[in-house]
């Protein structure tokens, strides 16, 4: 898997994930992912458009970081999951605890609702 992070306006960080989020793929990015989401920033967009497969290990990685971010008063939004990843997130019930959107503008609004 590949992972990169970019800072958007408004102190929002966008983390871009690419590849298969199975056990071998997750092992390649989980430490970097945890490190990026442990940064001082509190608002994160996780861009899943490049993730073509996700298993429970990938969901766990996202949820553990989301929990850590939320515990320090931050928020996370999942952006643009592919069709099957979207299905798996839905089956896992993730849509009931995290915001998921297919639009960057919507993601920004969800993180900065006052604007």
């Amino acid at each position: 898997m590949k992972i990169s992070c970019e800072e958007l306006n408004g102190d929002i960080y966008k983390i871009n994930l690419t590849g298969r989020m199975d056990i071998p793929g997750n092992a390649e990015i989980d430490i970097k992912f945890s490190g990026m989401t442990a940064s001082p920033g509190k608002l994160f967009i996780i861009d899943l458009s490049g993730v073509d497969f996700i298993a429970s290990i990938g969901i766990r990685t996202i949820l553990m970081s989301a929990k850590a971010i939320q515990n320090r008063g931050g928020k996370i939004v999942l952006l643009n999951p592919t069709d099957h990843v979207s299905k798996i997130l839905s089956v896992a019930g993730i849509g009931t605890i995290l915001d998921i959107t297919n639009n960057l503008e919507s993601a920004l609004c969800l993180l900065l609702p006052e604007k």
Partner: protein
Amino acid sequence: MQHSEKFELCVTNNFSEFRAMSLWLHNICENLALPESLAKDLDVCANEAITNIILYAYKDQEPHKILIQIEINQNQELILTIQDDGFPFDPFTFSLPDTYEKISGLNIGGLGIQLMQNLASQCYYQWLSDKNIITLRFVN
């Protein structure tokens, strides 16, 4: 296609074999002209089942064989069977986490089993000849 076909792959209890297994699953589905979404459902379920086996089925550090079978029957049902020689364990009687209401109270245990039970149309477990056998049925 109205006939049945069966395919078999043996892997060991090592995560390094996951990618080869996934490729095998996708190749079978492609050759059978099955939809990509079904191939990915199968892939997720095989990943989850074998992850549980590798993590929880064995008390030793020795290599163990895990047998994966795929059968497509005359009713066009796809049947995934996974067999291991670990300790007897029925994953489908494992209590599932409640619906997640908020992250702070999250119980992430059992997520893989939850995925299998939701993606397959039927899941069942047998203990036969000192083997765990789980069978997942998928409607094409």
